């Protein structure tokens, strides 16, 4: 046992470390302030946990070993663990297009909307321009009051001698404003497109130029009334109450404001998944195909890999090393690229495979538009991508089978098939079995062949959500979240993700007969 004898004690080292910690804390506090202002609780919680952890680990000498782990663990918690937890959280919310924000953010976004009221004050304006293209407006109201307005700053009263305002001329307009140059009439006309695009002043009171000499004050349209928990439309006086079950501001006649906000919806996403007939149809097809795809992909790659390993396992084959180097090349090419190459080769009418099938048999399958043939194509591509791994694994496992077993069997008169069936296969499955389960799990989520070959298509007709015949659950989830013509539905996508995860966990547990050995090895090393 190695007691932790000394954390390094150099004074400079300690000072440096504390300084770094202070910087981290300052940054975290600033971030937390912004997050809590927007009530973004999940991320805020994660940041608090991580920051506290880093502080504790760095301030307590008895946790010295954890300092070494802290960079990795911080990344693990924020970028791997938090997304898992956040997926669970999202599955129970209505997070989707139209409900992207927290309530606070939605209120703030709505507050940015402005309108020009008929009774709004009108000003005459004069523009000033700085050398780097910033503008300031000198505003004169009808009753002769003067104001100075800059974009993003509160409008202030225009008093000569303050804020760099120079002496006024006979019209009451300053000759100069420090840092700006007064624009002549001609120059004003030249710059009017730029000036017209700007909002002067700060929300909720902003001023926009409406003509060559007139500017008008815009007013905030949607005002949040905290007492009633509602938003009032200043133009019409209409009241939109916050509806916490759907996450929208909704008026008494059923009109909803856009954007809405996120609210927890309980099991609604899961209920939709299993009860809504329009969703259940495509989901059922996708669900079944995912299992078929994962099973067949694992099985076909294993069979071809094992076959090749058996063929080349015999030392009489010359150049075995060269052959196996060439045969694992499909494994070395980036899989995204290989799939796109196959996409080209299987391209109907034009791809090399289709052309030659056509030439030989006068017919070639509709690789990308017929549901059945597209599935075959995806499996063929997957076979090409996956057999080298299985071949490597199997030839390793074959070499560890004791040779005398075969000699004994031969003496006993066992033929080649019997030797394979009763010696090779059982012994091989002991070591390769867990890898087959792993291959199944991997292919269950093997997104690339599905998406890159045909984007999950051909589409399932009549599906209310975008879904195709080769879509597996993970690509279906991806479509729901990122490629929906009807808008993204993250809550629903997360619900499917959780369903996948639960199924995979169950499969892993049930197959633990095979995997316990791997587990034992893992814990022995600990």
């Amino acid at each position, binding site marked *: 046992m190695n007691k932790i004898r000394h*954390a390094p004690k150099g004074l400079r080292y300690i000072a440096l470390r504390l300084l770094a910690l202070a910087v981290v804390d300052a940054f975290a506090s600033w971030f937390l302030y912004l997050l809590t202002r927007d009530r973004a609780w999940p*991320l805020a919680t994660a940041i608090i946990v991580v920051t506290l952890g880093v502080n504790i680990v760095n301030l307590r000498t008895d946790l010295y070993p954890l300092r*070494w*782990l802290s960079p*990795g663990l911080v990344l693990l918690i924020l970028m791997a663990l938090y997304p898992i937890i956040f997926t669970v959280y999202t599955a129970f919310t209505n997070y989707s297009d139209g409900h992207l924000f927290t309530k606070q953010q939605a209120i703030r976004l709505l507050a940015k909307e402005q309108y020009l009221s008929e009774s709004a004050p009108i000003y005459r304006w004069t523009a000033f321009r700085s050398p780097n293209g910033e503008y300031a407006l000198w505003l004169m109201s009808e009753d002769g009051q003067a104001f100075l307005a800059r974009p993003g700053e509160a409008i202030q009263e225009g008093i000569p001698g303050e804020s760099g305002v120079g002496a006024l001329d006979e019209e009451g307009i300053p000759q100069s404003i420090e840092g700006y140059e007064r624009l002549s009439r001609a120059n004003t006309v030249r710059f009017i497109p730029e000036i017209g695009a700007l909002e002067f002043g700060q929300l909720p009171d902003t001023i926009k130029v409406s003509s060559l000499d007139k500017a008008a004050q815009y007013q905030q349209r949607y005002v949040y009334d905290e007492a009633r928990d509602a938003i009032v439309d200043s133009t019409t006086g209409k009241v939109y109450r916050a509806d916490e079950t759907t996450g929208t501001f909704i008026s008494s006649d059923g009109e909803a404001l856009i954007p809405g906000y996120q609210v927890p919806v309980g099991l609604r996403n899961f209920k939709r998944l299993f009860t809504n007939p329009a969703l259940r149809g495509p989901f059922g097809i996708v669900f079944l195909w995912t299992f078929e795809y994962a099973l067949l992909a694992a099985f076909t790659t294993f069979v071809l890999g094992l076959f090749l390993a058996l063929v080349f396992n015999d030392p009489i084959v010359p150049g075995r090393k060269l052959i196996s180097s060439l045969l694992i090349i499909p494994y070395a090419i980036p899989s995204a690229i290989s799939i796109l190459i196959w996409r080209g080769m299987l391209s109907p009418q034009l791809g090399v495979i289709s052309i030659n099938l056509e030439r030989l048999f006068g017919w070639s399958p509709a690789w990308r538009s017929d549901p059945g043939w597209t599935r075959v194509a995806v499996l063929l591509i997957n076979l090409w991508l996956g057999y080298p791994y299985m071949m490597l694994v199997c030839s390793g496992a074959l070499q560890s089978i004791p040779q005398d077993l075969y000699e004994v069997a031969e003496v006993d008169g066992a033929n080649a098939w019997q030797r394979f069936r009763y010696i090779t296969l059982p012994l091989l499955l002991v070591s390769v079995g867990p890898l087959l389960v792993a291959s199944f799990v991997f292919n269950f989520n093997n997104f690339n062949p599905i998406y890159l070959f045909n984007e999950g298509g051909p589409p399932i007709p009549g599906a209310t959500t975008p879904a195709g015949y080769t879509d597996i659950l993970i690509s279906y989830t991806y479509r729901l979240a990122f490629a929906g013509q009807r808008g993204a539905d993250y809550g629903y996508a997360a619900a499917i993700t959780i369903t996948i995860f639960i199924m995979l966990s169950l499969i892993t547990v049930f197959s633990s007969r095979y995997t316990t050995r791997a587990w034992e090895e893992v814990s022995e090393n600990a």
Partner: protein
Amino acid sequence: MPSLTKTRRFRILTSRRRMIGLLLRLAVAILAIIYALFPFLWIVSAAFNPSGSLATQRFIPERASTANFEELLGGQSYSLHPYKLWLWNSIKIASIVSILAVFIIALSAYAFSRFRFRLRRSLLLGVFLVQIFPSSLTIVALFLLFRQIGDYIPAFGLNRHGGLILAYLGPILGINVWLMKGFFDSIPRDIDESAMVDGASHWQIFWNLILPLVRPILAVVVVLVFIGTFNDFLLARTLLQSTEQFTLMVGLYLLVQTRFTQNWGLFAAGALIASVPIVVLYLLLQNQIVSGLTRGAVRG
């Protein structure tokens, strides 16, 4: 002498059977090699075929030229598919990720190997368990996470390489820590102990003693992480949105997605440039892993 003739006949029989077996095996080898290499050779042919379209490709191009490469690396339509930029983005991201990753992994492996502390076993197991959760399942959550971060810190938000790099580094500990910890374990403690008697700190032992000893395994991890990051499609596709931010894999997909049949030659040239270095690295790495393993063992 009947038994002798029997053995001889048996020998002839087996040698004939062996010959047939060998021929069959060689036939299988040829078929398998054609199967394995055909797509690759086809793309080489397409890359040097100046007509550049899927329909007019022959296996041996009639007038082989580098027209596709020239067009890809700076032709008229370069702004539509800035290949050099994509390549640079990919190399940049993969390099940063792999170097940060190896450093983070080495720090953690040192702690697991050299210290005994509470939670050590559970952390080791936890690190292993998190990576069993397929990272593709968190893609939606990662997208939402980076969109949220981007609202406050744009450099680490969506469509930025900073965010993508963080996302790649998240699940990096995993099996790599186990691998490297094994190597650290194989270096005898006596080295540390004697250095400690001489007053060396843990940091000095880690940096000056252990790391130089495990250089081969560091190189292996760097190359593995580099390849993994360089090849990734899903995460880059999800987090990046504008053409000039794309990585190579996303860019090539874009090239294929729009006007596939016309862009076939360009795609082929791009695929070739992208995959040849990776294939070479991979074939070199096979020996590297083996030698890394043996060297580590010898030193231990």
